């Protein structure tokens, strides 16, 4: 469970990233975070795995105060949280399975990491993760030979390989065409339902958010302006979040 209690984020140059965020997200929810670029969506999800530090308030994830973690404890905490990036962030020259295996690295000793020695168990586990996202046949293909959608799935497999309790996705479908975007979104939905993993997804395309997610959080200028179920999101709500500007959709 993720709890934000009066969380603030002020950058060193004075810019306010987040203001008085109060939020509770239970295990197994599929939440979409929408808002304009620069509103604070990325900042919000990156505070959860402490890629960005909060400057005020408390952030408690599964009973742990995130800001109290240091060094090794913090890295162990991050093992349980997976992150998907807009630009996939894969090692393009390596094969898909190699990329998936890298998520096991923090648990391995120095020499195994140095020589890249993964046990048979680890390799089978990685293959299972690739199978779950449906690209088992591409396991031994180099990532730069895969399409965007396939690369994002490898990225998803890498995250699943960690057995996370929470998955954070920062604009995962922004670089994909509409059909592939829908496939990836339905992958997220399936993983969320079957494995009861909390999924928080930053997304620009409101129509996809409304279609696949159960809960929507709207952010404007670092503040939460809407927090509720998807079916209660009306045009007025959207206008409020997007400040009256045109609503971005996947088809545009």
């Amino acid at each position: 469970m993720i709890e934000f209690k009066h969380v603030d984020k002020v950058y060193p140059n004075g810019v306010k990233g987040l203001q008085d965020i109060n939020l509770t997200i239970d295990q197994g929810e599929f939440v979409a975070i929408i808002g304009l670029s620069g509103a604070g969506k990325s900042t919000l999800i990156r505070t959860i795995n402490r890629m960005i530090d909060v400057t005020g308030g408390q952030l408690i994830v599964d009973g742990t105060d995130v800001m109290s973690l240091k060094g090794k404890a913090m890295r162990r905490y991050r093992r349980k949280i997976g992150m998907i990036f807009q630009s996939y962030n894969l090692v393009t020259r390596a094969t898909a399975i190699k990329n998936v295996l890298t998520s096991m690295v923090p648990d391995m000793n120095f020499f195994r990491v140095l020589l890249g020695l993964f046990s048979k168990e680890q390799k089978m586990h990685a293959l299972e993760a690739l199978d779950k996202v449906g690209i088992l046949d591409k396991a031994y293909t180099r990532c730069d030979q895969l399409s965007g959608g396939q690369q994002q799935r490898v990225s998803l497999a890498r995250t699943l390989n960690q057995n996370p309790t929470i998955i954070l996705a920062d604009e995962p479908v922004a670089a994909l065409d509409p059909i592939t975007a829908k496939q990836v979104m339905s992958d997220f939905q399936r993983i969320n339902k079957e494995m009861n993993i909390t999924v928080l997804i930053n997304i620009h395309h409101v129509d996809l958010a409304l279609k696949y997610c159960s809960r929507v959080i709207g952010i404007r200028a670092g503040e939460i302006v809407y927090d509720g179920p998807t079916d209660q999101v009306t045009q007025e709500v959207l206008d409020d979040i997007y400040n009256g500007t045109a609503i971005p959709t996947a088809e545009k």
Partner: protein
Amino acid sequence: MAKEKKTLSTNHPLTIEEAYASRPRLWWIYTLIILIVAALLGWSGTSITYKGLATKGITIAQGVGYGLIHPDTNLLFNLTNEGVPFQLLQTVAIAVLGTLIGGILAIPFSFLACDKIVPKWVSVIFRAVILGIRTIPSLVWALVWIRVTGPNAFCGVVTQSVCSIGMICKMYINAIEDIDKNILESLDAAGCNGFQKIRYGVLPQIIPNFISTVIYRFDINVKDATTLGIVGAGGIGAALIQCMNSSRWSMVGAYLCGMIVLMIFIEIFSTKIRTRLARG
């Protein structure tokens, strides 16, 4: 790199066991490469014996260290022919002339070595000539040219001109072969004749490249010019070696400091100009 997997005869989707079984096994290539490299290294080490420090080894190391920290300031600011500034100037001058002459002489050589411009057999001959020039170390060239010009700075100039031809030609040839033919095509379509195509299509592409190459070679030549001094072809190398042989460490320090400062200067300068040329 992965072997093409045998296609499954039935239509069932790939299982994990099958995927694992058909994984490419590359570990033996890596082991082989590592064994070869290790063998090479082992063999190389056979005649490199560490005989311990030379009898005066420590004194010399200390002397050099001392000289670097206490350079002979008289020498550093002495404006006569023996002083550091003049020696540096002469070294740079050798490199300037050597690079320029070499750069100009390299132009016909490199065009004659491109198999797209001249017949194959001509280019082969000239490539061999260029390779020959490049293989003879600059020191050897200097020692040969000394017989012609005598041991002075001019010898250094001539040596560097000849040596520069070697490397500059190599880079010129790369530039010429990389010419974008499409530009020539569009000039052709606009109705230009051969000369015009060269003047407006080929030259604007290769001249910045050529200049960049020359400047890059200049950087290297300044270093080389100091080395040539060791055999007497002028420049700061000669004075440096004399002082080293007579253990005048402060003077050695002065020359070294001068050299280091000069090189740093030239390198920064040449990198700046070359990035300007590349980015415009």
